[in-house]
């Protein structure tokens, strides 16, 4: 008897966990899931989430169970005698006021603790990144490391990144579910967020605040890599960055490893692309290493320096392939209706080929 009750009790302890497993079972298949945290911020949130799910499931099973039982048990017929006319029960009513209050307290205490852990900027040895929302793409500036990029954030694994976030137009919300919760961005204000990636890999992020026509296509990637890979990436991205030396390519920079990724001498196709980039109006909106706008920090469109190294184009929407780039350049509005990317004129296929070659060469 003793053991079987004990076994039962042990089994009962697992019921919420089993339900949770069913709920979370397929989470592995979702690249943007909140249920498999891979960063410290997301783990804090996830712990709280699991506490609330635990209590919610218990309450759900008990209350719905009693409701269903009552419906099955107390069925009557039209000619049945009048049931006992109870008007209430002070004891019961006090009990079911107090018990939920205790359950809520069990959620409230860790909640407030976590709020105070997650509200402010991180301190200490951190990678500082400015996040700027635009309709409909993300700009990332590594102010201390001298890098400006778009829609693909690189972070070193195991090191806290500190995000200082704002927007240059409407409200957006920065969200990489596997690393951290979301935080909205407001014009003229800065909001904090931080996280420390625990594993390497590429992770999906999205804008989570409705921001106009193409809110759905304002995605981005976070690439978590080893410190060495990250340093190499920074070094490559620094070349011609508007934050370094006014965009002019520095001969030597002691803070980062030597630049080993400078492209080979451009071929004629790429040179034609550069000429077109300068003459056709692209420089009206885009910073670009080697072009007239190399040193301009604030432009309407994403900084295209090293665009060839990014995994995706059009704010995380299309894989960065020559075909997709050509498709985008032939008619941006058909790929992403309402996009603020306006071609100054219709480009010929030959012109697009030169631009694709030019942009792809900027690794």
């Amino acid at each position, binding site marked *: 008897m003793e053991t079987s009750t004990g076994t039962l009790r042990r089994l009962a302890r697992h019921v919420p966990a089993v339900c949770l497993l069913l709920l979370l079972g397929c989470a592995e298949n979702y690249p943007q899931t909140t249920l498999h945290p891979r960063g410290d911020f997301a783990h804090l949130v996830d712990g709280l989430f699991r506490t609330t799910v635990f209590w919610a499931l218990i309450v*759900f099973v008990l209350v719905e169970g009693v409701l269903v039982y009552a419906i099955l048990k*107390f069925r*009557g017929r039209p000619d049945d005698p009048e049931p006992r*006319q109870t*008007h209430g029960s002070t004891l019961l009513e006090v009990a079911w006021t107090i018990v*939920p209050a205790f359950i809520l307290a069990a959620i409230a205490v860790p909640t407030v603790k976590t709020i105070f852990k997650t509200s402010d900027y991180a301190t200490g040895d951190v990678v500082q990144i400015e996040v700027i929302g635009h309709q409909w793409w993300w700009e990332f500036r590594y102010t201390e490391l001298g890098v400006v990029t778009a829609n693909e954030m690189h972070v070193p694994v195991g090191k806290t990144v500190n995000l200082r976030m704002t927007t240059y137009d409407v*409200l957006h919300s920065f*969200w990489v579910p596997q690393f951290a919760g979301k935080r909205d961005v407001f014009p003229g204000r800065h909001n904090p967020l931080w996280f420390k990636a625990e594993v390497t890999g590429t992770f999906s992020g999205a804008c989570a605040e409705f921001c106009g026509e193409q809110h759905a296509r304002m*995605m981005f990637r976070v690439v978590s890599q080893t410190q060495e890979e990250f340093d190499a990436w920074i070094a490559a991205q620094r070349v011609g960055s508007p934050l370094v030396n006014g965009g002019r390519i520095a001969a030597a920079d002691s803070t980062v490893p030597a630049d080993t990724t400078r492209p080979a001498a451009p071929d004629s196709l790429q040179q034609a692309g550069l000429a077109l980039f300068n003459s056709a109006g692209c420089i009206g909106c885009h910073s670009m290493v080697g072009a007239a706008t190399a040193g301009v920090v604030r432009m309407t469109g994403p900084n295209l320096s090293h665009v060839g190294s990014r995994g995706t184009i059009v704010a995380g929407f299309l894989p960065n392939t020559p075909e997709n780039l050509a498709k985008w350049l032939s008619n941006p509005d058909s790929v992403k209706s309402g996009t603020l990317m306006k071609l100054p004129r219709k480009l010929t296929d030959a012109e697009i080929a030169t631009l694709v070659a030019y942009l792809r060469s900027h690794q």
Partner: protein
Amino acid sequence: MATSVLDHAPATHAKAPTGIWSWITTVDHKRIGILYGATAFLFFLIGGLEALFMRIQLMKPDNHFVSAEMFNALFTMHGTTMIFLGVMPLSAMFFNYFIPLQIGARDVAFPRLNAFSYWVFLLGGLFINFSWLINAAPNTGWFGYANLTENQYSPGINTDFWVLGLQILGVASIAAAINFFVTIVNLRAPGMKMLRMPMFTWMSFITQILLLLAFPVITIALVFLMMDRHFGTHFFLPEGGGDPVLWQHLFWIFGHPEVYILILPAFGIVSEVLPVFSRKPLFGYTAMVFSGAFIAFLGFGVWSHHMFSTGMGPFADSFFALSTMLIAVPTGVKIFNWIGTLWGGSLQMKTPLYFAVGMVAMFIVGGLSGVMHSSPPADLQQTDTYFVVAHFHYVLFGGSIFGLTAGAYYWFPKMFGRMLDETIGKVHFWLMFIGFNVTFFPMHFLGLNGMPRRVYTYPAELNFEFWNRIQTWGSLLLGFSMLVFIYNIWKAARKPADAPADPWRGATLEWLIPSPPQEFNFGTVPPVGSSTPAWDLRRANGGPLPEPKPESGAGIHMPRPSYWPAVTAIGVLGVIGSILFTHAFHQWYFITITGAAILIYGIYRWAFEPAF
């Protein structure tokens, strides 16, 4: 005191008039209730169609069933329609029809103001929906977050339709709220103390207070936004010293009480249906009253839980987290008391009970997911995802719509003298129940697995397709269940009007008079000694009461029909709607002046028209 004013006036109609003119000029709360119900049900169907179009678009990744702009307009109009043109006026149908009946009054306190509310509501609803016809439907969300709604980012008149349309609808809501508040305070039958009022009337009363306190806030916010858009101010523009966060605070100080405006009437209906079909009184009547009042009071102190991701700082986050958790306590009391009402009863398994129990069961789910995102850090993963979409559909569809449908089945015989079919009703329930859960339950999974809200499409590699497909099939089933409901009404309309006065063994005053009631409601108002006066009479009689006979109504004077409320409503539309033309039409203010002239003339004629 209760029946005084209306008794002394000098005219009556032997027979209820018919024809369209009689509907335009009616000031009878019952007819206005039916007008509200019919209009709101049509808007509700339109809102449902908008939802179905969205579901078809989201059925597969990178779908092109509708464009991005169309999708954004669909979700904006779906939310706006369901809240302001569907659920609120469906509740208003029951307020209109049943508050006077439940408190033993001949009409509402201000019958012509009541007609005015309806006409303003109708014109406001038509105004917003007119935008579809000129391809300018609002597309910035029902929440209209600044600064996206400012001229710079939304230059079209789409957002103006939304701003001005809500302003017009606000006029209707505030006028109606004043009317019902005064009616409940002043026109109760002798003996009906506040704590003897039926629970539907109680929850309606609390709803009117919420309306009166919450709507002025959205009115101000909308005026600010209108000024920004049309007259060069910058309340929400940071470049001019304004702040878009101000909009969020104003919107949600309105928006959260609005949630209770949508759910409390359904709470009231369920609190009527459960006792009647359990054949025992509501468990813990007083606790139900005060928990409702407490929910309403706390409802004004939780608005920022819609804004946990805005970075308000740890103290504000903690305050709003705790106040939000606190609101779960009175809500829990309601649910437990409903179960307590069923417990030990003699359950009559009729369609209204199915929907009422369905409402309780579904609201529990919505309430629990609500507690889950009352925790701000957890909410950072949940807000603006499909998890939240699941949550509020469980409280607004699973709660409000199930509750209102329970009310429709419960009160249909009283309103139209015809019973709805029980078998079709139960088929309706099961289709709606299954369709609802298949549509909305998987949204919990999708949200937690990273699907943001308000996206017109999603890439295949995020693996959202499977559940989206299932949800779309569920939504089609849900839509089909509405057809079953319409068929049930159509079938009932073809039957003779032979429903008894009291088909359910009801507890409240409306069941003591014929179905449908005569224009003057009560020949004589019966004495009220408890919250279940009809049961008291039945018990005193030792069995069922005799079928009430139609009364002559001689000597009872009812207010005269009037078309001035409708004329005045047109003036309101002209004054507010004319702002739409400031950008397009230089002489726009002539429309404003014309509207103002109609408005003032309407009020003048209304004021000097004899009421009886």
